[in-house]
């Protein structure tokens, strides 16, 4: 029960932060950079802590996991984890008013939990029911709740207040938690093992990419921040007419723009001034 309360509190706080920071960004004429610099030293410290944790704890465990399993086994485990997330997608498609996809996700859950042996095999995909995950974060985006600034959470890594709220709610409605709810002792054990398994399985899938990125980057934090925030764009909002087109990343190739400009576009749909042509700048 305490855990529930904590999650709800975290959600409310996160969404409040998202809203107030949005208002602040608007009133400061989008001087997002200043606002971020206060957060940045915290973020960088937390980022390097997480990076250390990943390198010294999570990655070695994930390598061990990779060593004792083969791709076939890992695919089955990933399938089970993915299957347990389908009820969350179902709830969120409903909240987004997307009845079609909620139906697809529900059918997938029923079919894969039974015929697919708890999700080990994606039988439903073969029947044309494709997996399309959605989360509370996507729902908040659809409801046009602003994202807020970039924050690095301990252990969970890159996030924003809206993403944090979405994640907390996702934990709160996790079917694994509710299935074991009646027995506190079993519940704790299963929840923690399940969380650990998820973290290891996720890291196993992503560690090669992360290592590759880190190796080729001169400022890993800046790379991750930029990529994370860009990836979160185009989630689509009910008020937004351009949500499905490429327009929002049709940034002007303006050589003089501040590097943070692109992040401003996260907060508001761009009303761009015309760009200066590169030739002009070259001539200067």
């Amino acid at each position, binding site marked *: 029960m305490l855990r529930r309360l904590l999650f709800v509190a975290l959600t409310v706080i996160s969404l409040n932060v998202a809203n107030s920071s949005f208002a602040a960004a608007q009133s400061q004429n989008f001087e997002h950079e200043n606002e971020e610099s206060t957060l940045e030293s915290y973020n960088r410290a937390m980022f390097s802590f997480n990076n250390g944790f990943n390198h010294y704890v999570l990655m070695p465990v994930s390598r061990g996991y990779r060593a004792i399993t083969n791709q076939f086994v890992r695919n089955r485990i990933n399938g089970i984890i993915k299957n347990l997330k389908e009820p969350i997608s179902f709830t969120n498609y409903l909240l987004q008013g997307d009845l079609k996809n909620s139906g697809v996700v529900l059918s997938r859950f029923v079919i894969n939990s039974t015929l697919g042996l708890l999700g080990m095999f*994606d039988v439903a995909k073969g029947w044309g029911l494709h997996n*399309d995950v959605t989360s509370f974060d996507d729902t908040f985006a659809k409801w046009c709740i602003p994202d807020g600034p970039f924050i690095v959470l301990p252990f969970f890594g890159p996030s924003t207040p809206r993403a944090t709220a979405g994640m907390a709610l996702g934990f709160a409605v996790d079917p694994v938690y509710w299935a074991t709810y009646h027995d506190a002792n079993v519940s704790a054990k299963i929840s923690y093992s399940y969380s650990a398994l998820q973290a290891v399985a996720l890291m196993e899938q992503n560690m090669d990419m992360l290592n*590759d990125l880190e190796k080729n980057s001169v400022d890993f934090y800046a*790379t991750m921040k930029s990529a994370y925030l860009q*990836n979160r764009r185009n989630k689509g909002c009910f008020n937004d007419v351009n949500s499905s087109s*490429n327009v929002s990343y049709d940034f002007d190739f303006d050589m003089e723009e*501040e*590097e943070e400009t692109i992040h401003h576009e996260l907060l508001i749909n761009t009303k761009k001034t015309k760009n200066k042509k590169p030739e002009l700048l070259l001539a200067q």
Partner: protein
Amino acid sequence: MKKYLILLALVCSFSFASANVNAAVDAQGAENFVKNVTADGIENIINANIPQAEKDKRFEKLFNNALDLDFIGQFVLGRYWRTSTPAQREAFIEAYRKLNVQTWSKRFDEFKGRNFIFTGTTPSNTKNQIFVNSEVPMEQGAPAKVVWRVEQKGNSYKVVDIIIENVSLAITARNEYSAYIKKAPNGVDDLIKDLQNKTK
């Protein structure tokens, strides 16, 4: 009846004229260009039965031909481009090019067995540029969205950015390098040195 025909002709010619203004870029040409580049990469590099050194060489050639690195380098350096000397600019572009060739040559290999499905083009607000949209089917989950930002120069085309799952490589590099330069005591020179060290 005749009146209507004239009106129709007028409307048509107007819409034609405005379409021409907006669509200065040959969409089909741009899409074919990206198709050829990816097909070339998949057939002659990824699936070719040749030693890795030869693959790397071929990849570098493809990379140099397909991308407008002067343009990308300039964008990536952002406002620091203006304050850099010609020598620094040249050194930066070369270091950036080398690092990308090395990085993507390796990543490219993991592409084995996959393919691009082209899904049309989207106009850009930037002159002479267009987005070529494509998808890469994945083993698990939804296909990955890969968008190519293509610039037309006369009859030739160059890729100026690749946007994978909403993440623009040019913007990511620009943010990364700006953050780096801001903190580095010797600014751009430090960046160039660091980039060079990564490809040694």
